[in-house]
């Protein structure tokens, strides 16, 4: 469903991701891990067509992100790191607007908004202004927005940030329930979240892939270690080093 090959993104003299390749099968939930600044958000922005890559290709459902951006965008629901909300709109008006620009036909819009609102559990606050609801609700409206139109691929950048423990569990249940029907990339720092929701993990550090395998295989390769320890081992090389420079990387 998602094919990334030799993807590289440079910002002037900073390398965000370097030669990144991975494949996500249909219906799979991929846990996308990495320390802050490892290039997770950049990868997701490229996959959603928000930013172009410097080199390499990314394909979603067989469509190249760069050559057929509209086809890709029709198939992807995206929750960015900071939920893209208009504070001066009510939740209902906001979700209706998103349904419109995502091309949900007029007749189905009301039903679709209702469906995602109940999935993300915001149905009872639909008439409140987004500016006036708590951070947890804002995050949930962000999740609802990504689900609109039931896209084949969901790309969620830290979906449980700002939620309280019971909401975190609800969101994890929601994500697990999407498996099979949707392909999900879930970025997070919280390792338990990966254990709870994902089958496979992709770990990147300093813009490079350091692991991409099944969670169980990862644990077999590092016997006797907890996931936290494995994560720290794999990412330790880049943890103290300064961000890679293209000259050094080349």
């Amino acid at each position, binding site marked *: 469903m998602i094919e990334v090959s030799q993807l590289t993104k440079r910002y002037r003299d900073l390398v965000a991701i370097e030669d990144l390749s991975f494949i996500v099968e249909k219906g799979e939930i991929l846990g996308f891990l990495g320390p802050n600044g490892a290039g997770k958000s950049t990868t997701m922005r490229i996959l959603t067509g928000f930013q172009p890559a410097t080199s390499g290709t990314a394909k979603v459902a067989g469509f190249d992100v760069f050559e057929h951006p*509209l086809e890709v*965008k029709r198939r992807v629901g995206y929750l960015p790191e900071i939920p*893209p*909300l208009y504070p001066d*709109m009510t939740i209902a008006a906001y979700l209706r*607007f*998103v349904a419109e*620009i*995502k*091309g949900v036909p007029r007749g189905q819009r009301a039903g679709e908004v209702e469906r995602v609102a109940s999935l993300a559990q915001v149905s009872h606050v639909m008439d409140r202004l987004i500016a006036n609801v708590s951070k947890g609700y804002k995050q949930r409206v962000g999740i609802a927005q990504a689900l609109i139109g039931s896209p084949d691929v969901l790309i969620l950048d830290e979906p449980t940030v700002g939620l309280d423990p019971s909401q975190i569990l609800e969101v994890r249940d929601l994500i697990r329930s999407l498996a099979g029907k949707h392909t999900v990339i879930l970025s997070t720092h919280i390792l338990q979240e990966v254990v709870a929701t994902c089958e496979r993990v992709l770990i990147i550090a300093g813009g490079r892939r350091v692991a991409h395998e099944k969670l169980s295989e990862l644990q077999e390769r590092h016997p006797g270690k907890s996931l936290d320890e494995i994560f720290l081992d794999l990412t330790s090389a880049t943890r103290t080093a300064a961000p890679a420079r293209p000259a050094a990387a080349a």
Partner: protein
Amino acid sequence: MRNALAIARKEMLLYFTTPIAYVVFFATAFIGAFFFLSLTSEFQRRSMQFMQFGSPEGMGWLNLTDMVAAPLILNMGVIFIFVVPFLTMRLLAEERRQRTMELLMTAPIRSIEIVAGKYLGVLAMLAVLVALTAIFPMLLDTYGTGASGGGAIEWQTVGAALAGLFLCGAAFAAIGLFVSALTESQVVAALITFLVLLLTWVVGWKAADAEGAWRAVLEHLSSVQHLVAFGRGIVDLRDLVYFLSLVVLGLFLTHRAIEARRWA
């Protein structure tokens, strides 16, 4: 097109849920009323004078269209220099600051549709402002009578002036939209837009001192100068081209600015 309309509707909604629409409507109506009152009292003073001295040819050219309605509409063009920056400052600057640009850019819509939607939203607001301005000549037409009987207002002239006012506002809005694409700060967007629009007005003052080709160039650059012909009821191709080319240039640059941001 459908996507552009969705964005235009969203912009309209945001104008009315924030105080911007109400403040801009109030300011325009208030200042319009102020100009209207001073222009009508000046008209009254002149007509009393002419009647006292019994000057029939004076009475002949003294009419409400050229003395009140047209100057009022030209003044509103100047007021647009102050008002339009408030309408356009939010459009793209706020999308960037709130990170909602990411929503628009990852939805299955083209960036040209984003630009068109935003612009249509402002045009709708401008149409309301022009309609507010049109109330004043309507009042004159209702309560006044022309020299030869009939209505007090020559609607061809006033209609041309109102169309010119709308075109002038549309050109200003395209400039404002572009400036809004360049910054994350609404205040910076408003100030720079105001500065640029003010410049297109005051450049006409310099034309008076200039000579030869420079004079022609400066006069052609002056936005208010181009509105004046519309106020006389003349729709000149040069004036149309001036305003429409500003619109096209503004929208083109806005589109370029949005695309350029992605590659940064």
